[in-house]
């Protein structure tokens, strides 16, 4: 059912999602004072696709 074309088409989305997740995780690890427990943000970033990292960057980062 999953042919090569599908994989090639969906691959960029996966790469971007993983990139977004890695940006968020690297920032979370280096962040001394996130807005909430670190393990909670790690779970949100890893478990919620796309929305998780956005939530972390907007709410969890305390950049305002």
């Amino acid at each position, binding site marked *: 059912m999953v042919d090569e074309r*599908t994989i090639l*088409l*969906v691959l*960029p*989305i996966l790469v*971007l*999602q993983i*990139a*977004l997740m890695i*940006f*968020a995780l690297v*920032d979370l690890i280096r962040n001394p004072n996130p807005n909430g427990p670190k393990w909670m943000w790690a779970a949100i970033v890893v478990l919620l696709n*796309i929305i998780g*990292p*956005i939530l972390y*960057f*907007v709410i969890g*980062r305390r*950049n*305002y």
Partner: protein
Amino acid sequence: MKQFSTLLLKEWRENLRNYKIFWIPVVFILLGVTEPLSNYYLPQILDATGGLPDGAVIELPDPEPEQLLVAVMGQFQLIGMLVLALAYMGSIAGERRNGTATLLYVRPLSYVSYFLSKWLMASIVALISVWAGFLAGYYYTAVLFSAVPFGEFLAFAATYSLWMVLVVTLVLFASASMPNAGLAAGLTLAILLILQLVDSLFGSRWEWSPLKLPNYAASFLDIGPDATALIWTFAISLACLIGLAALGIWFSKRNRAKTKV
């Protein structure tokens, strides 16, 4: 001028270090790619999520590539603007809260440079995001369906870019005028939603309004907008942009007087 380039360097570093220059474009690209892709796989998605009796045949017409690009723009109008408003709501209000602003206020600061450096950096990030997202959407639409003429696409994306810059200016104005970041985002979204509602209810009575920029952008993919209406809309949008920037500069200057140390 020297002050401006120093402040711009500060903004650039800040955007680099809090990853805004990476994650905002990635979100826009994901929005741009998902729209054509989910349309392409719609039959399989319907098949897999089920609920249809065996042997049901659905004939889905192939969507026009223009419609897909307009749908991508619809995503930007909703999620994209939300992301930009939330990402930049704190650019001035947040600095007042965390103390960076006090460090700046004790120096002979040009508030024009201060505001415009933030505005330029936020606009650059917004434009990179919008163009990356549209190009990704354009590419996927061309591969999966058929290509929109590239000239029309350029006019479409360029017109929409002016709208995005206007939105960024509004966000920064709100951030300068409001006491905290949450209120700044709230004010931005409230203004945008109310004006869009007004424009969609009574918008047929006038042709020249910055809120019609997305519509005019979309009509470039169709028959093309009316030239005079477009020129007047551009002129009024630029006037709004300059007005908002001037108000933003005035408010950031006033913030200094309100600082308690």
